[in-house]
């Protein structure tokens, strides 16, 4: 609000918080202040606090109602919340009143409240962030933010801090009750602190993902909430499992036959070590989404990540699974079959993700095809070297991602083969070589699917993503179903499974023949080559000048 002198000031709606504090916040992050000014209205404040207290009260009365009755004629002999004698019979005090297990009651209350708070925090925040961003984009105010010298980092940080301010307030108002119930349940405040650190990280991950979804053009906040609900459930489940692991699991590493290691990091050393591992990898996930957000803020037509960034991302993901796979378990080869299948599916997912991340919009590909020779020369002022087309395909911003993805698939395929060789002691007979053959076939399939995906993404179709889903369903889901319906099991018809089902031979490693592997590898690689050639031709046609187009007519 304007200062009082020399002009009269406005009636204040946020006076109690303090102008100086708001001014300091505004200097640190103008976007945060702007969101606060939009939110900090007496009506919003009282609504957030009122709803929070009401929900807490309802939850308290609900749990209160779940306690065993203490009136003499109705006292139970069995009840969830009574102290028992070891045979599930309730204990009674000297007055004949049932003894309540307040620890268990408090723990349940605390867990329910905690889960409720995360849900409200994440879903409420996701809804508000997507709705806010969509509104800014629709009204056009977002373009003005892009024109200011502020970085995307500060704008997004301000939005994440400020847009769900009322949700934060509602959650904050429930903290005293949560702390009280945690203590009543016999748990420490340190555990509560660990819970909140994890909850905040999960919320930040969801908020960043919500902003990314909004940046990609989603206006439907409820859709974000729906997707988040589906994703949040497993995330909260993992969080509760982390807290539910009994203390006996941790510590005493020397006397274990199996130790839960990641590379050389003993994750089973302590709960904190295991949680830190989860925090670090969630943090890495947040980092990459943040990078994508920054790029989209600078240029809404940019790819989510640059090609160079995806090399690092793929390397990181490879390091992640290798950390678990390079373990000296004393197990036979048969345990490695699921690992082969996991690797194939893992890298198939990465292949699909890389295509979606790296495929520039059709207009950008057209501009690249038409003008890349000019723009490569213009890049001289930045790099002082003329960029070759090969280098442009490997690291260029607008170039098609074909080569970059192929290089990444080749590199990861080599890593997987190296892993099979490194684990040679666990493969019986020649099965190591068969495993390498299976991996080569899987990576040829990925190359083929990648080519198909690029074709579809390049088409001028509104329903591209539906078509992608249909194609992947036809290629990946229908063949195993058809073979299953025809009663042709993997062991009985290994050749058919090898030829037509993605990673179909991983569960018949002993039966698979070299001919089938060679056949599958050849047809898939040939199809990948054909698709790449067609894709190249279509880009050449797209990039033709108008003059050439007229002449060719």
């Amino acid at each position, binding site marked *: 609000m*304007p200062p009082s002198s020399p002009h009269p000031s406005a*009636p204040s709606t946020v006076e109690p918080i303090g102008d100086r504090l708001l001014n300091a916040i505004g200097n640190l992050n103008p976007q945060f202040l702007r969101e606060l000014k939009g939110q900090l209205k007496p009506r919003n404040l009282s609504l957030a606090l009122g709803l929070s207290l009401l929900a807490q009260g309802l939850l308290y009365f609900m749990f209160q109602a779940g306690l065993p009755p203490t009136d003499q004629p109705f006292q139970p002999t069995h009840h969830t919340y009574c102290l028992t004698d070891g045979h599930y019979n309730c204990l009674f005090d000297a007055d004949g009143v049932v003894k309540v297990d307040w620890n268990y009651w408090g723990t349940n209350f605390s867990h329910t409240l905690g889960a409720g708070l995360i849900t409200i925090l994440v879903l409420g925040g996701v809804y508000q962030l997507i709705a806010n961003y969509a509104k800014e984009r629709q009204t056009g105010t977002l373009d*003005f933010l892009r024109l200011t*010298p502020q970085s995307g980092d500060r704008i997004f940080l301000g939005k994440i801090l400020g847009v769900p301010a009322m949700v934060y307030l509602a959650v904050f108002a429930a903290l005293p009750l949560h702390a009280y119930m945690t203590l009543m349940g016999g748990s420490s405040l340190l555990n509560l602190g660990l819970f909140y650190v994890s909850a905040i990280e999960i919320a930040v991950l969801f908020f960043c993902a919500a902003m990314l979804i909004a940046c990609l053009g989603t206006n439907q906040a409820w859709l974000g909430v729906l997707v988040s609900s589906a994703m949040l459930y497993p995330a909260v489940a993992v969080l509760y499992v982390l807290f539910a692991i009994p203390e006996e699991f941790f510590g005493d590493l020397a006397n274990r036959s199996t130790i839960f290691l990641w590379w050389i990091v003993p994750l089973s050393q302590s709960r904190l070590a295991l949680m830190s591992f989860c925090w670090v990898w969630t943090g890495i996930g947040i980092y990459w989404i943040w990078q994508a957000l920054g790029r989209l803020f600078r240029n809404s037509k940019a790819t989510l990540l640059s090609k160079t960034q995806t090399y690092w991302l793929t390397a990181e993901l490879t390091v992640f699974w290798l950390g678990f796979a390079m373990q000296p378990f004393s197990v036979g080869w048969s345990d490695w079959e699921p690992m082969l299948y996991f690797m194939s599916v893992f890298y198939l997912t990465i292949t699909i993700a890389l295509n979606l991340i790296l495929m520039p919009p059709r*207009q950008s590909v057209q501009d690249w095809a038409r003008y890349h*020779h000019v723009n490569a020369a213009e890049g001289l*002022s930045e790099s002082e070297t003329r960029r070759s087309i090969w280098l442009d395909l490997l690291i260029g911003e607008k170039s098609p991602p074909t080569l970059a993805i192929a290089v990444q698939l080749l590199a990861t395929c080599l890593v997987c083969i190296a892993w099979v060789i490194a684990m040679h002691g666990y493969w019986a007979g020649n099965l190591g070589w068969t495993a390498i053959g299976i991996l080569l076939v899987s990576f040829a399939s990925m190359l083929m699917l990648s080519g198909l995906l690029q074709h579809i993404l390049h088409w001028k179709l509104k329903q591209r993503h539906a078509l992608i889903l249909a194609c992947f369903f036809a290629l990946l889901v229908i063949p195993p179903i058809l073979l299953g319906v025809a009663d042709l099991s993997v062991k009985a018809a290994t050749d058919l499974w090898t030829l037509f089902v993605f990673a179909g031979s991983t569960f018949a490693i002993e039966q698979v023949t070299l001919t089938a592997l060679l056949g599958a590898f050849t047809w898939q690689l040939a199809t990948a080559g054909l698709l790449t050639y067609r894709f190249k031709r279509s880009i050449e046609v797209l990039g033709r000048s108008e003059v050439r187009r007229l002449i060719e007519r």
Partner: protein
Amino acid sequence: MLELTDSSLLTAAVSPPEFAIETRGLTKQFDHHVAVNSIDLKISPGEVYGLIGPNGAGKTTLIRMLAAAEEPTTGEIYIHGERLLRDRQNATIKRYLGYLPDDYPLYEDLTVWDYLDYYARLYELRDPKRTQRLYEVLDLVQLTYKRNSPITELSRGMKQRLGLARTIVHEPILLLLDEPVSGLDPIARRQFREVIQTLQEAGMTILISSHVLSDLAELCTSIGIVELGCLVESTSLESLYRRLSHQQILIKFSDGLERLTDLLSRTPYVEGWTPSSDRRSLTVDFSGRVEDCTALLRSIILADIPISEFHRTQESLEDIFLKLGHQQVS
């Protein structure tokens, strides 16, 4: 073609910032439609440059590219000698620029003051300068009395002026205004024009696109005509009038037609005349400047010819625009 680009890049590295805006081969293509076609635009500091052209000619796309709101397909943009690169933060160039598009989205949940304060902070203005600047721009756009009002309560003209205040709050040195007076009533248009004139006097370089050519004729020092994505004309307004505007002088008199025609035949820049049917007035085709016109009037008076009216008329910017073969002004 590459060699040409190479040499232009070499010159770019050493060229002093003699232009507020300089573009080289600036092109924007949407699918197969070339919206802006290899435009080389040069605007000197302090100029008020009017951009005119039919709808769909590429004016808005050109301005959006200059404002870093749109990525060029190819070509280079220099703002005060600094290269604008799309994938960079361009923080310095963004401080130079103020951009007002034809639609002016505002935050309806904020007051006038909070809205401007927010943008001042985004441009990293600190108190006490920020508060002082806010009062300055509010005063300039005549909205001081509305500073505590919610934006929803403002009229269209006020919102337009608030948009302009937002555009200049960080003291840019280059203003890009796209159709700033479209949809405004005559009073609001005049108020807006006065603000632009004040900014011009303050030395700001202004690029303004408008279909209201009378406004441009009043404001601009130079004019660029865009058609089918090409910059077909880029010159000073004076030069444009001199080259393309037909000038006439109407002289009414009570007596002395012969003496007057004799005088006119000896006067430079007089290309011909047409007497009226009553032989009491002449329409003179004249190609001289204002000073030459004054000299002619003086010589008529010195020749003691009894004139009752001496009126100089010139074809307007709109006439010139239409004469050049452009059928559509708006």
